[in-house]
């Protein structure tokens, strides 16, 4: 009986794998800001922002991978030369991801700062100006920001949503949010630094949950049944008197 059970289990596993493969994976692009000579903010204890964003991107990549997202990044290491914002936007726009997350860190403020582009929303056009490319995705970006905000509330991490003009955020054509990690104030204690592994993991898990909910929200609704259903035999014709 044991080989038969193994055979059934293997068959079920193959069927599940095939079903998962048929469902397209949602691609998320992560952009750990700064890198190379561009160190970003100089945080406490001589920590550089470029190193924090890279470490946070690695945690986020693992969390998103566990939630069945395909993840692309603009950098996986500290490059020798700085990556200009236009190049980052170019990488993201060519990849056509479902969403872009631009990762930053700061020593000011408290909790997570969610930044959406301050551009006014515009309808999609045939030609998209580079400087205002994000304007066509503003409604989707704000919807994503609200999902992220709700996820941080559930994770008990303070979050602030604001809008700003920022490169490469303004140049992205996909729904995009900048996520800025700030120290976490503790009542009666010293703030949790942005380098804290548990804090980063908690934030990464919240983001993965938010994107999972957002994926359901943006998923195309099933098409309505177009096949006409036969009317019950006792139903009177439309417009006829009862």
């Amino acid at each position, binding site marked *: 009986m044991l080989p038969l059970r193994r055979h059934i289990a293997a068959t079920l596993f193959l069927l599940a794998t095939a079903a998962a493969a048929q469902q397209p994976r949602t691609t998320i692009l992560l952009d750990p800001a700064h890198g190379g000579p561009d160190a970003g*903010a100089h945080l406490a204890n001589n920590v550089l922002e470029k190193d924090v964003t890279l470490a946070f991107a690695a945690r986020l990549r693992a969390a998103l991978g566990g939630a069945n997202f395909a993840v692309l990044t603009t950098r996986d290491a500290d490059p020798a030369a700085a990556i200009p914002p236009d190049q980052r936007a170019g990488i993201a726009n060519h990849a056509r991801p479902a969403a872009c997350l631009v990762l930053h860190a700061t020593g*000011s403020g408290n909790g997570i700062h969610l930044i959406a582009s301050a551009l006014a929303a515009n309808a999609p056009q045939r030609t998209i100006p580079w400087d205002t490319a994000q304007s066509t995705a503003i409604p989707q970006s704000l919807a994503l920001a609200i999902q992220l905000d709700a996820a941080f509330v559930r994770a008990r991490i303070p979050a602030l949503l604001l809008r700003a003009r920022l490169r490469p955020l303004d140049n992205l054509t996909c729904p995009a949010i900048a996520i800025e990690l700030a120290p976490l104030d503790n009542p009666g204690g010293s703030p949790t630094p942005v380098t804290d592994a548990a804090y980063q993991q908690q934030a990464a898990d919240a983001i993965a949950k938010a994107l999972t909910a957002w994926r359901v929200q943006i998923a195309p609704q099933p098409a309505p049944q177009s096949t006409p259903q036969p009317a019950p035999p006792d139903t009177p014709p439309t417009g006829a008197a009862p």
Partner: protein
Amino acid sequence: MIPRYQRILFWCLVAAILIVAAFLYHAHRQTQRRLAAPADETPIAAPVSTSTQDVTLYLANDADATVAPSQVSFALPDDPTSRARALLDHLLNSYAQPGSAHPLQGGPAVEDVFLVPNTPSTDTHSTDKTETAIVNLTSAFCDRHPSGIQVETLTIRSIVQTLHAAFPRITQVRFLVDGQPRETLAGHADLTRTYSVTTENPQPTTSN
């Protein structure tokens, strides 16, 4: 024996030398007094004719990412550009006070403020009286500004809204640093673009 006329000539020459020496000494003292005169004109008390005015400063708050109006009263120059510069100096130095909700380091922050009409002066038919303010920040201010998207954005928003409140005809603001264009304020907020007071409508949301 020296002739009498030579003795008279000698004493006349001595008298002339003394007179010229006295004249030169007097002229020297007068010149010294004239050169030293500007230093004595330094005012030792505030001019009593300048009255304080109520102005609205838009103060940033890092805790909730807002920029809120606050009424203050202080003396400002009459010249618009000097007035705008004094206003921004007062605003940015207020962030250096202890207990500031948006702490910045003090020191010189604004070199100049220029007000430029949005419509070229050659267009005499235009009724557009709006202006663009060009704020020339010091590199020292930018270099010591905290780095981060939120903190930099709030500083810029505070400057733009304060200028618009004091000069309603200012509808756009551009930034220079030491007279030159600069990519960002402190690594994040874009300084290459023109900030419009009509489209800058921050809607922060506090969740916790």
